[in-house]
């Protein structure tokens, strides 16, 4: 089971409303070819919820979302988000988790586009003298 062409078209338009491209940060929106392909490939077990959210969207819009005036599209997106519920939360989660692992987006955030392993990260030790006031306290555990 996959999304229908009309569901995909609506989904892509909604993705752009959730995360639009930014000229300020020179990054694509969630409707970008690569990112949206990742989104479609990542539906997996969440497909039924996404279909349900898109069905709700189609009912509210009454026409392909992208064919509507921009102001009406934004109004519909706001309505969907305000209405809430599991399906739209799941759809939003998939959009976000694919968007924020895109190389271009990560680089714009100053992040290295790589998995944590094997390079890891560096953690500063900090100033352990901060612990001196605590060390000077008497025991606070309750004797029995």
């Amino acid at each position, binding site marked *: 089971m996959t999304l229908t062409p009309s569901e995909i078209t609506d989904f892509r338009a909604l993705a752009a409303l959730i995360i639009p491209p930014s000229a300020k940060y020179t990054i694509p929106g969630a409707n970008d070819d690569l990112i949206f392909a990742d989104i479609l490939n990542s539906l997996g077990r969440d497909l039924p919820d996404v279909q349900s959210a898109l069905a709700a969207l189609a009912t509210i819009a009454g026409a392909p979302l992208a064919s509507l005036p921009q102001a009406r599209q934004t109004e519909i997106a706001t309505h969907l988000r305000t209405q809430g519920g599991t399906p739209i939360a799941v759809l939003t989660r998939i959009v976000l988790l694919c968007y924020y692992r895109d190389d271009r987006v990560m680089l714009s955030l100053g992040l290295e586009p790589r998995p944590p392993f094997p*390079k890891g990260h*560096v953690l500063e030790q*900090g100033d352990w003298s901060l612990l001196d006031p605590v060390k000077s306290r008497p025991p606070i555990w309750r004797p029995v």
Partner: protein
Amino acid sequence: MLEKVDVLIIGSGASGAAAAWSLADTRMRILCLEQGDWIKQSEYPTNGRDWEARQFSDFHPSPNKRGRTTDYPVNDDNSPIKVLNFNAVGGSTILYAAHYPRLHPSDFRVKSLDGVADDWPVDYATLEPFFAENDRMMGVSGLAGDPAYPAHTPPMPPLGLGKSGTRFAHALNTLGWHWWPSDTTLATTDYDGRAKCINLGHCTFGCSQGAKASTDITYWPRAIRAGVELRTRCRVSRIETGPDGMATGATYFDAAGVEHFQPAEIVILAANGVGTPRLLLNSASAQHPDGLANSSGQVGRNLMFHPYASIYGYVDEPLDGNKAPPLCLWSHQHYETDLSRGFVRGYSYQLGRGVGTITEAITSTAAGRLPWGEGHHDAYRRLMNHRIGMAAICEDLPEEHNRVTLDPTLKDSNGIPSPKIDYTISENSHRMLDHAIARAKDILHAAGATDIGVDRPILFGGWHLLGTARMGTDPARSVVNAWGRSHDVKNLFIIDGSLFVTSGGVNPTSTIQALALYIADTIKQRLATLFD
């Protein structure tokens, strides 16, 4: 029929592994049945770019969401806190945060000290050598001298403070409150074949480096070398009993769904505070119509989770985010009873570092903090790596109506009835949560945080499954005795979190394992008269 073993352990997690290793020096024939698989370090999420996404799918902490073939479903609809676990060699030590406090001495004496619940039939001093032995085996990092505990010395130095820990330290010092680097099972030096932590930052969902102690890489290699057999993909459906009322072994399904009977002289249950009562209730027979070892009616009752609250805010500089283990410090300032606070018993804080980029986006979107549309990018840049937060872990007192029963319709893939959870948060716990959230806000304000957020209780927060086959000296009010042996079935032992008489206000794994080692040691001491 399969060949009889001396000791059959059901479950290979925190407690089962510790007991298997300890009992191995008896040279008895020991077999452990585990319903899950071995998990390779190369399978953990931090190996791939989709590492954050997998916490919502095949590494989700809820078995209902995760839905692996090795999982069993849990009906937790009637609970504000959902059951979490992991089914594999190592059990839920595969999927835990590695925060590793011990219960306090006072936790074992709550009736005597505070007039609530019951005292435990063991105490901190009795368990102390087993805490220390377990610290060595699991490999604990931390710092000696914590005024919140009797003296003990973790074998490795603590994790660094980092930027987040430094912020918290200044804030708590300003308030004059207790804090200390957490005991963790993260190796801060190379330790016993494990490479040291390199700050992958996603410890809870499995450590690709192997720096986090899970029993598949600590106890099990040693136990197997000592001759213990570990049989995976074996899901136990019943413990069987003979005409004399003693356990004769267990029936289980293998990976192909074929049913076997494994005979044994001694049966040890280590299947966690939901899995163990489920199995005992599923083992009902004409002799034991209300479930095995349940003449007291206490099997499945007194379920304790630890109600958690998450309290967090945002500061004006980037902190550690996900670039280090998620938990760094603890505060036990409000752990011991002070009735002027409006509740009995207490809580601790797990002070965190931050969250990953995707987790920040998802949780802030859900909270309404991160908008859709034009303002999204600017808002996200103000949030990312600026989060500072903590979890309050509140002592959950036992109440008989909080319980595990068998669901009348829900079954696992082998047709075994699933557990059903009925649980409510007590008024005392609500008052404790109120206090913990208010004081957490004090800490966050002292740390310079704004835009405070609270999740209460944490919905997917049922990590700690406790109390459902509790220990005690009175057979009418407890399931097992002071050393884990069933009052009713003298060759049946329980060694997991089900034993807990009370929950304390800290993560229980260290205490679960110390108890398992203590019970295993007692079995060894009493072998000649074990069934008397």
